[in-house]
């Protein structure tokens, strides 16, 4: 109040503090969003399935992934990171999770999609346990905010099984 610089500093300080409060409120408003997402994955083809020279099984799949994550978007959403993981149990590990595919969804319009794709990341077992293996495909997503708290959730799809013999 005593000088130009004093008043400018007072305004900027109060302005930034108020901005922080507004961002906290914007993040808090995300709690009132109750998303209703859906997803469906089909294994269209087992491209090949063999044992590597290292002794580990590897399989290549063609997947049809369709999902609707539009309801997860709010005014405070920067992007949604989605990834598909194969999950199964082996004698050595109680839970194996392998990411097969992921995508960054930058806007609500792009959050409803169907894609045909070979697995983006390789499905390699720790060992040779994949023949005839039953597995789940789980679609995980992280709703990344413009400011504040990130929300994460998933849909588990069960009932998938790998072939009994190598191809």
């Amino acid at each position, binding site marked *: *109040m*005593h000088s*130009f610089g004093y*008043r*400018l500093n*007072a*305004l900027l300080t*109060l*302005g930034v503090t*108020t*901005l922080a*409060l*507004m961002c906290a*409120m*914007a993040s808090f*408003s995300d709690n009132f969003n109750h998303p209703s997402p859906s997803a469906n994955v089909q294994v269209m083809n087992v491209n090949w399935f063999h044992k590597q020279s290292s002794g580990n099984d590897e399989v290549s799949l063609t997947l049809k992934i369709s999902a609707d994550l539009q309801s997860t978007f*709010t*005014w*405070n959403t920067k992007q949604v990171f989605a990834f598909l993981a194969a999950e199964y149990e082996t004698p050595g590990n109680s839970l194996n999770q392998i990411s097969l595919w992921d995508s960054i969804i930058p806007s609500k319009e792009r959050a409803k999609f169907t894609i045909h794709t070979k697995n983006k990341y390789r499905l390699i077992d720790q060992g040779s346990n994949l023949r005839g293996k039953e597995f789940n495909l789980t679609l995980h997503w992280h709703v990344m905010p*413009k*400011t504040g708290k990130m929300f994460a959730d998933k849909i588990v799809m069960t009932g998938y099984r790998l072939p009994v013999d190598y191809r």
Partner: protein
Amino acid sequence: MDWQGQKLSEQLMQIMLVAVAVAAYVTGFMIESFRIMMLIYAGGVVLIALITVQNWPLFNRHPLKWLEPSVADEYSKEPPQQQAAAASSGKKKSTKK
């Protein structure tokens, strides 16, 4: 700025800032646009800076009343030089005692 002006400037700044923040948040929330909230708020802060930080004439409507030079002279009947001499002679008298 004078004292009243400083108080007015500070109050204006605080009230306007809260009003702009509320307007920005409510508008952004209603139309679901984070970007609009930020734009309204930034624009509002610039506007407030222009109005309250600069020393406009309206902040100088109650200027300080300094005493007139002639009024001050009533309290000292002798010019400053003789006043200093009287003070030093006063000091001498006290040490002699």
